């Protein structure tokens, strides 16, 4: 595992350096992200999550430190930076505000067209991206501004997926969606990840979302990376998370307390289904179910 797809070395970003308003948005972050992982990124508002994500595809240049993509410093050769952005796809917060083309199809094909792909292959990619994002075929020739909020979000995500990035970064993709919209979008991201075996970084304020999808969780606090560990291990540290304004999923909190009281449950249960399974097993063993 010594060949991480993405590695940062003492990455820092300082706003207003040398002025009275100097602020460290990101401080000395050194992390390694392996090929094919799904990383959940959590942290309070202003913790530096979004800034860190934007440095990973070279959109923001760090004040100091390095980002290595596949072992190569992304800022080493300015001409290659464009390439980096094709390989590391970033979906911003509220991406529906960035739709601009006349039709959804044109909007989605903007990325692959800039990559200089032939028309045929662009068309193929647009179709595939639309399927992954859950956009119906008939919507492709509509104006993106006639779509509903949820559909716009899907169209914007499809635009990034169409570039088929090795690393897909999504900054709060489910913010403002209702529970159903959120579940569908997350399962589509998961399906996309599984079929392409790419690397995904998902920023979210919803611990339940992260618990359901992430292999490892990165925790940011005031610009520092304070944890990067398996999802179970991170959510086992509920007191530390709460002290920095975060929470563990409700189901994890419930099962952790039951376990403390002596119920033989495993540590760091992350989903309702898993908790249900274990409690049923206990009750069946005692012949009560």
């Amino acid at each position, binding site marked *: 595992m010594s060949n991480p797809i993405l590695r940062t070395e003492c990455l820092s970003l300082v706003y207003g350096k040398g002025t009275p308003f100097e602020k460290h948005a990101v401080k000395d972050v050194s992390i390694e992200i392996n090929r094919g992982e799904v990383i959940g990124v959590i*942290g*309070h*508002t*202003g913790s530096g999550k979004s800034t860190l994500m934007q440095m990973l595809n070279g959109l923001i240049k760090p004040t100091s430190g390095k980002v290595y993509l596949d072992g190569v410093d992304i800022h080493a050769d300015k001409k290659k930076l464009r390439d980096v952005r094709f390989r590391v796809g970033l979906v911003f917060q509220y991406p529906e505000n960035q739709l601009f083309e006349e039709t959804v199809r044109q909007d989605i094909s903007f990325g692959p067209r800039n990559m200089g792909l032939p028309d045929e292959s662009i068309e193929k990619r647009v179709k595939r991206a639309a399927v992954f994002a859950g956009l119906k075929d008939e919507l492709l020739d509509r104006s993106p501004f006639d779509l*509903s*909020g*949820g559909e716009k979000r899907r169209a914007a995500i499809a635009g990034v997926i169409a570039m088929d990035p090795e690393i897909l970064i999504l900054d709060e993709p489910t*913010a*403002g*969606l*209702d*529970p*159903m*919209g959120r579940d569908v979008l997350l399962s589509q991201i998961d399906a996309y990840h599984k079929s392409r075996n790419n690397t995904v970084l998902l920023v979210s*304020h919803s*611990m*339940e979302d992260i618990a359901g999808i992430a292999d490892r969780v990165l925790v940011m606090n005031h610009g520092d990376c304070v944890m990067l560990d398996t999802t179970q291990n991170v959510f086992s540290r509920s007191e530390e998370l709460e002290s920095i*304004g*975060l*929470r563990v*999923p*409700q*189901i994890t*909190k*419930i099962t952790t*307390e*039951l376990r403390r*009281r*002596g*119920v033989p449950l495993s540590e760091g249960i992350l989903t*309702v289904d898993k*908790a*249900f399974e274990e*409690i*049923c097993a*206990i*009750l069946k063993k005692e012949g*009560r*179910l």
Partner: protein
Amino acid sequence: MDFIKAEHLFFYYEQEDEQQNNAVNVLRDVSLSVRKGEFLAIIGHNGSGKSTLSKHMNAILLPTGGRILVEDIDTQDEDRIYDVRRKVGLVLQNPDNQLVASIVEEDVAFGPENLGVEPEEIRRRVDNALKAVDMYEYRLHAPHKLSGGQKQRIAIAGILAMEPDCIVLDEPTAMLDPKGREEVISAVTKLNREQGITVVLITHNMDETVNCDRVVVMDKGRILTEGTPREVFSQVQLIRSHQLDVPQATELCAKLAACGLELSQLPLDTQECIDVLSEVLL
């Protein structure tokens, strides 16, 4: 006593299509009363009509059919529209769209200034409003440097300074982190409990509704069901089939109950769930 009363409310707008004009029905025959001093939550998926309903409560939108009364004032009575807005204040989703001044206390004073309130009285109201949401110590700060939860509480203080009888909050926590959400919900709960202000909370987040008096579930512009949080969330199947969530604590126990496990009650929050499950597992 009914503070807000919606009677057979309809709302639709015309959508211009290339071929024809289609009317989109957002509210279809909604009748609902909000009692004075009540803490009411309205939940529903995107497009269920819950925001549209909330915007009728202070005459931002006017009904296309039926009527809505705020303390017996019809919101369609143009002469009294400002009376309605003085009684019912509206807080929106994005705090950044609601703050107008560069200093917190000036922002909170904006509402009463526009109402022509005397300067001394404004001072008193601003101080009280900021204390009510625990933001008094930030009165001289710049709003844009505060956290999301703090900004949203400033927006609430701005409404409070106009001394409304009722506050309607349209997804006030949707853009906040977990701590910010808790700050806003606890500030709103305190206003309801301690000052008797009527609260209508519109939200996607079911965990926020467990302490309110009554939950109304909207679907396709109609009221699907209503009742106390316990009555509503015990209908797990109905809620989930309408694209909504119940709290994880409730979901787990409902699943166990469906397998035949007897529980003393269906829990709504973390502590109740721990207690109920401790009874059967220990």
